[in-house]
């Protein structure tokens, strides 16, 4: 094993890690504000992938331009999800909410199986095989674009959270829901906006990977477990933590791919996950409790 291999897989891991980051940012945002672990996050990401796929194959829209469709669609799905399903049980024990989102995830995934069959679908772009070369290293254009898109959206979410009034209200509702309510913040409204933003993040992540990842109904399952690991690693509820955690898990996965065969490549990240859960459940960055 020479150094080039290692640097190459570090690079690949970092690029995919950017997408993990975005999925995890949405998950962490939702958890931070509502204390809901959204098991359906992978299903929402899958919906984003299908949005891109259908926009591409029916309307011939470039996959990256389709975020203009994905973002509003997933935002609305997220808002409806929160308003009609999560909201009635927002005060129930945490595991009830976990089960509810699991139910929604089963429903959405198999609704897609029912409507559009479980077949693998592919978004074929003309620039599919474009690579940049730096000496022995190569970077796929698609993966690079996915990384940039994910970083861009994660950065926008970060700006919204830190620089706008809405972001201030969201942070207030995270820290102290009752206090926020007393200060005249409509916490229920913050809840559904947050869920919408979280779902849109998952959707954009779906769009970002659609050009180089097969699109099929249960594809979200791969990402949602990874996203849980990222969120736990970064600290439940911490957006910055989720961002850094995504890059770490991305690299850990591709390093695992060097040393272990096939599906075992996730082993390193799982072990990191278990160690973090056991010894530092608040995550590396530490969370807003």
């Amino acid at each position, binding site marked *: 094993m020479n150094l080039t291999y290692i640097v190459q897989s570090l690079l690949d891991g970092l690029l995919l890690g950017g997408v993990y980051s975005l999925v995890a940012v949405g998950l962490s945002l939702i958890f931070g504000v509502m204390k809901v*672990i959204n098991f359906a996050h992978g299903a929402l990401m899958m919906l984003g992938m299908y949005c891109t796929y259908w926009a591409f194959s029916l309307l011939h829209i470039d996959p990256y331009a389709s975020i203009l469709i994905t973002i509003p669609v997933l935002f609305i799905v997220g808002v409806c999800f929160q308003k009609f*399903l999560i909201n*009635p*049980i927002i005060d*129930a*024990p*945490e*595991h*009830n909410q*976990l*089960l*509810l989102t*699991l*139910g*929604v*995830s*089963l*429903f*959405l*995934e*198999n*609704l897609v*199986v*029912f409507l559009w*069959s*479980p077949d693998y679908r592919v978004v074929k772009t003309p620039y599919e095989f474009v690579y940049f070369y730096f000496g022995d290293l190569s970077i796929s254009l698609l993966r690079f674009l996915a990384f940039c898109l994910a970083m861009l959206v994660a950065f926008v979410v970060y700006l919204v959270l830190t620089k706008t009034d809405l972001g201030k209200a969201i942070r207030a509702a995270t820290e102290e829901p009752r206090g926020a309510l007393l200060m005249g913040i409509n916490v229920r409204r913050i809840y559904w906006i947050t869920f919408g933003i979280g779902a849109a993040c998952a959707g954009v992540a779906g769009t970002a990977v659609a050009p180089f990842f097969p699109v099929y*109904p249960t594809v979200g*399952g791969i990402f949602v*477990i990874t996203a*849980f*690991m990222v969120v*736990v690693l970064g600290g439940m509820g911490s957006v910055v933590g989720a961002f850094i955690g995504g890059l770490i898990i991305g690299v850990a996965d591709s390093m695992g791919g060097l040393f*272990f*065969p*096939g*599906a*075992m490549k*996730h*082993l390193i990240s*799982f072990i990191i*996950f*278990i160690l973090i*859960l*056991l*010894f530092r*459940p608040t995550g590396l960055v530490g969370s807003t409790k």
Partner: protein
Amino acid sequence: MHGNQDRQGYLGRALNWKKGLIVGLIFIGLHFLPWTLAPQWVHIMIMIFLFTVMGQGWNILGGYAGQFSFGHALFFGLGAYTSTLMFIHWGLSPWIGIFFSCFIGIMMGLFVGYLSFRYGLTGPFFALIMLAFAEIFHMISISWKAVGAALGLLIPLKGTSIALMQFVDKKPFYFITLWMMAGALYLIWRIEKSRMGLYFLAVREDSDAAEALGVNTFRYKMIAMTISAGLTSIGGTIYAQYLLYIDPDMTFGVLNSVEIMIRPIIGGPGTVLGPLLGSLVLTPLAEFTRLAFQSYSGVYLMIYGMILVAVIIFLPDGLIGFAKAIIHKIRREAR
């Protein structure tokens, strides 16, 4: 899902002789059922019994002791693989293998339990750690050639043999699973009535308060884990012998964890009859929709999803809680 004293389970108080007689008659009556049913129904009954056993396994930990597991497929898979590998490589009868399955399942359960409960991981964190362990074994079983990798293991059929737990006919499995279910129901009923059952409830309702009152919560969580892991791994062994085939997805997969936990949750977690009721409702539903929509095999999962959402929102105490509420209402009106 948390309630008052009233929800000590449907059979919580001592049975009077009338109720005992009814339960006894139903149990005896069930022994004649396989001769009157079509084979397809015998299969469904076996699935109902088997998933009730595993549902009880989940129930003792998730329903009574309140430690929500998202990865009971871990124990199921360990049970299925242990006895199957022992049979294939050493020709060991599954009747003996089942003890090893149980042992390995319990060891794994105690290991995971020790790690998580010692650090006070509960709620969603415990759920995720169980999921993570199940996924690790899923990955290992997919990649490791010696355990059949992704193709799984085929158990060679050597004709009907009681000693090897292999039967061409479905009826023997009907009786095995029926007695196992009766045993599991009896065990859970006895636990519920015992002091230990009350400790489990105390741990579930308020772990800190229970600890303050002198209940060793760590110990009781570990006991619940032991029973839970044991029952579920036994279920895995029987399942493997019944189907004569196992693969990583159907044993360690996330969907299998869902199958195991969804029955007690929908029936009524923390009750003796909840897992049975959930199994009675969901198993035929799953089998029939699977038959009716063969090309769209996911439809039953879609229905699972809808039922799960509806039950969580409208019937947080499960079907049993719903039935009890109706009985109370009728009684009050009759008075």
